[in-house]
């Protein structure tokens, strides 16, 4: 999931009877699956939580370009390079759709960018892990985009119109990402012994961080309960994680690779796999900024923002000058 640990109001969910008529009308619309649009009335907490969630999601798309961009110049063939470029370009687009959706809630894009750069807003923990080999690009597409899709498909039905519409576009494009990742993994897993080892090593390093993407169990979280009542979160973290494991294990088997979990076993009774939880201490450390490459990621974003300032200002000055000239000529 690209949004983790999103806090809502922190209070329990109100019943319809406890709401004033305006809020009740809002909640009844949500319950009836009628979309909430930017200019409709919405509770302050709904708006704030959505800004956090969509903003975090958008930042993840943008920061997520960095681990993959790392391999564009080193892709093994021209075709792989073109494919990776297209994928990284898609991520920029996804970031943009989401920033635009968040902007309809009254926060500016620059404001969100500055909150990312100051560390006030977060992005997904997964992007604080480095991509050390070409097989990592395969693992990122297969596992990271696979986990993202798991979360994003239900969000196409989320209650906030602009968010749901952005998710529809994103989901359409995302399945190419996962398939290209698996394609890389297939090639590596069926290649030379060294390539197979590289593929296994990538799976070893990305397995648990991918499970962390869904966030810790939120079965008893007031934030999740509220977000689910507002339909800005559709499934619990555990549900999505289970679904992801059930889907991914057979795919790993097909590749002839081993999931790095000795406890992994099919559980006939629940119709899913039993599996080991990731190390949640590591997860919280990464969120706090102590992951392997947190500093590099933020540094790269800050540099891009600062180095691009003269371009943003220059283009705007040029546009204003031309507009003034046009007015003068009329």
């Amino acid at each position: 999931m690209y949004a983790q640990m999103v806090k809502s109001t922190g209070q329990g969910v109100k019943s319809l009877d406890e709401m004033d008529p305006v809020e009740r009308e809002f909640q009844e619309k949500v319950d009836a699956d009628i979309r909430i649009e930017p200019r409709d009335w919405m509770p302050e907490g709904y708006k704030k939580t959505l800004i956090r969630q969509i903003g975090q999601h958008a930042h993840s798309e943008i920061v997520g370009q960095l681990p993959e961009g790392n391999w564009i110049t080193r892709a093994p063939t021209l075709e792989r390079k073109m494919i990776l470029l297209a994928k990284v370009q898609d991520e920029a687009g996804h970031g943009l759709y989401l920033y635009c959706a968040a902007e309809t809630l009254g926060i500016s894009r620059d404001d969100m960018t500055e909150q990312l750069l100051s560390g006030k807003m977060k992005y997904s923990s997964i992007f604080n892990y480095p991509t050390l080999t070409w097989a990592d690009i395969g693992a990122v597409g297969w596992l990271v985009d696979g986990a993202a899709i798991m979360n994003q498909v239900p969000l196409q039905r989320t209650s906030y119109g602009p968010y749901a519409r952005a998710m529809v576009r994103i989901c359409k494009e995302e399945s190419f990402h996962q398939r290209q990742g698996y394609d890389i993994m297939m090639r590596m897993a069926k290649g030379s012994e060294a390539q197979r080892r590289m593929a296994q090593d990538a799976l070893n390093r990305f397995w648990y961080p991918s499970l962390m993407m869904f966030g810790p169990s939120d079965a008893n979280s007031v934030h999740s309960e509220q977000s689910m009542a507002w339909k800005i979160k559709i499934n619990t973290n555990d549900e999505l994680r289970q679904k992801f494991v059930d889907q991914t294990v057979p795919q790993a088997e097909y590749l002839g690779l081993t999931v790095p979990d000795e406890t992994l076993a099919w559980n006939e009774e629940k119709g899913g796999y039993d599996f080991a939880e990731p190390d949640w201490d590591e997860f919280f450390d990464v969120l706090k900024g102590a992951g392997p490459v947190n500093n590099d990621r933020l540094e790269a974003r800050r540099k891009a923002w600062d180095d691009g300032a003269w371009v943003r200002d220059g283009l705007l000055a040029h546009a204003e000058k031309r507009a003034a000239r046009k007015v003068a000529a009329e």
Partner: protein
Amino acid sequence: MSKEWPLWEIFIRGQHGLSHRHVGSLHAPDAETAVKNARDVYTRRNEGVSIWVVEAKHITATAPGDKGPIFEPSESKIYRHPTFYDIPDEIGHM
């Protein structure tokens, strides 16, 4: 802090002769750049053959609160729909 680029709403016409349809928005310093960026962002997979860009501030919209007075009157005028009229079967398709 520098000023933010204005927001543009993007409309794309697909290949099959339908009208331009709103697909999303983006920031750009001027209309020409908005068109170029819209091409890169919204037509990467053959989505369209024509792009319109409109600066968001120039769009006038109905207010959500006016939904009743504006749209309800059309709900009761069922005679505006062809299904309101019973045409005998022997007449065939009409």
